[in-house]
């Protein structure tokens, strides 16, 4: 008996390989949006690598954090590469997350039987927000300091115990070295481990029910004599090689950003990250990174603080309900033009909110802020009504695929 057989007899891996790769049948008609999932896996791995490397040089204290970050940039060999990978990587992860979620919305992937895949995915998105926020505070730049102050002060609005919770979160009355200590612990252990665990759960739940596809129809309804879906192909080797070429294109883009536009016009690396924390020099227009600013715009669109927080909470949480707000039994918006148009307006509006959320708090931005909030909320309120009555074309019986 060879070593391979000896191990195979005792290992769960061959079965897992078959179940999730070699005999996992995926629809053959995936389009470009379907790369985002595997690219996210790649990026999380690279984020771990670059994070591991910068962690080896970073000093988590109020006195040294800022200088240690620039020690990495200036003095560590290829330190700038580690740093830019980590900074630009976090923004690019959110680019992919938004593409991945938009894909799910366009093709109705959140609908039965994939509700839990959607919900676990959305929890991942929220946890990524937390992970990014904790990471943001660590360099102890002035942006770190004020972003940390503003975001933790939201906790004060929790009824009765708000002040107490805020002090626990900060490790004192204000942002300090104690805050860095606990945010660092959260950033590199607890929240990170949650991300890894939930990614595994996300994929396991997906593989239980199978992938959706751009036509939104069930490939399991047409099977061959072996019980394999006629429109499905084994994930390995077909999608492993396809995703591999996706990796190539994406790594090219990622490297182009790092090597030629590492601050990405100061969208990925904001200017106020380049000045040390200063409790006396408040940033009048402390704005969150671009990927959180739509929600910040909604927070600001209501002049009353608690009202703003409630709207923001609603905006952040309501996508959990997508599977039930959408009443149309047909999944893909390829056959539901009205929902598709609503989605396009929703996405454009999300850009508008992201842009306005980055602007200083001036009266002239009230109007776009409020308009954006109304469109955002309006989308979710209209969705159940529209999807009940919208004109819907009949999807084809088999997925459409053009060999090329």
């Amino acid at each position: 008996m060879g070593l391979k057989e000896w191990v195979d007899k005792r290992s769960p891996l061959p079965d897992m390989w078959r179940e999730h790769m070699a005999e996992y049948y995926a629809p053959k008609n995936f389009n470009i949006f379907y790369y985002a999932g595997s690219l996210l896996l790649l990026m999380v791995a690279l984020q771990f690598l670059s994070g591991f490397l910068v962690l080896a040089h970073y000093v988590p204290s109020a006195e040294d954090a800022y200088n240690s970050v620039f020690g990495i940039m200036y003095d560590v060999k290829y330190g700038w590469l580690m740093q830019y990978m980590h900074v630009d990587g976090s923004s690019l992860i959110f680019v992919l997350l938004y593409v991945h979620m938009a894909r799910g919305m366009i093709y109705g992937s959140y609908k039965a039987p994939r509700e839990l895949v959607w919900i676990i995915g959305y929890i991942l998105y929220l946890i990524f927000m937390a992970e990014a926020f904790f990471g943001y505070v660590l360099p102890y730049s002035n942006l770190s300091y004020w972003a940390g102050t503003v975001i933790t002060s939201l906790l004060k609005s929790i009824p009765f115990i708000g002040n107490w919770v805020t002090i626990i979160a900060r490790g004192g009355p204000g942002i300090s070295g104690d805050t860095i200590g606990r945010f660092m612990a959260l950033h590199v252990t607890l929240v990170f481990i949650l991300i890894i665990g939930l990614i595994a759960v996300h994929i396991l739940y997906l593989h239980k029910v199978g992938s959706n596809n751009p036509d939104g129809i069930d490939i399991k309804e047409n099977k061959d004599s072996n019980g394999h879906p006629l429109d499905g192909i084994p994930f390995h080797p077909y999608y492993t090689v396809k995703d591999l070429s996706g990796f190539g294109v994406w790594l090219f883009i990622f490297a182009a950003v790092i090597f030629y536009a590492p601050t990405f016009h100061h969208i990925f690396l904001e200017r106020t990250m380049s000045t040390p924390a200063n409790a006396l020099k408040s940033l009048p227009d402390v704005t969150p990174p671009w990927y959180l600013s739509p929600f910040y715009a909604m927070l600001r669109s209501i002049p009353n603080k608690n009202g703003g927080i409630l709207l923001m909470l609603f905006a952040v949480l309501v996508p959990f309900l997508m599977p039930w707000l959408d009443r149309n039994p047909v999944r893909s918006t390829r056959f539901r033009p009205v929902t598709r148009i609503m989605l396009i307006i929703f996405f454009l509006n999300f850009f508008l909110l992201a842009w306005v959320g980055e602007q200083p708090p001036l009266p002239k931005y009230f109007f776009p802020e409020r308009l954006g909030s109304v469109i955002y909320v309006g989308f979710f309120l209209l969705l159940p009504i529209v999807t009940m009555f919208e004109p819907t074309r009949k999807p084809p019986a088999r997925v459409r695929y053009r060999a090329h």
Partner: protein
Amino acid sequence: MKKLLVIGTLVAGLGMGGMVAAEAETAPVLMKPKYTYDAKTIIAGAKLFAMHCMVCHSVQFMRYEFLTKDLGMSKADVHKYIMLPTGAGYKANMVSAMPVNMASKWFGRPPPDLSQMERYKSQDWIYTYLLSFYQDSKRPSGWNNHVFPNVAMPDVLAPMGGTWSEKGKLLKAGNESQQKFRKQVTDIVAFLRFVSDPSVIQRHEDGPWVLGLFALFTVFAYLLKKAYWKDVK
């Protein structure tokens, strides 16, 4: 019909953004320095910086050796034009000789470190700032600035660029032509831009190789995909 609606929403969305953006901004308009960002400009700026700025300002993250290793300046030149007379190792950081507590006493505020100033404020800001000093007898230093009102720093470049009134009248000519002076200010800006991210040299050196490698990888991966997918009908 569907296409029309999509285009309509796009246009409406863009129009809305434009409308808001078109409103007047209150901040002073910044001028843009024009130059080629290369070793020659940066080294010229480094020399001017050492002569006029480093009396007070440090660029503490920057090391002398970046000038030799990354920009190809000779050690002798660094010694002659950049280093303080007191000398320092080439591995040492470019720190001003002025003690911080003395500086605070003289100017009211310590002169900030300029390592990250370009990242923080932008090169347009620094360029405009250096060209926006005017004489103001109400200020302790006798100077003020259009971009940075009530600045504590005096116009150290006035002997070169001239002394100006608040309204922009030349009070005392400098010993450089305005064109030459602007070029010199531009050089200083280029140096500060380099200081804020010296990795630019290595990034642009390695970049083509890394991108080429990934492009090559993509080609092979794509051919592999083609080969496997031949039988998917």
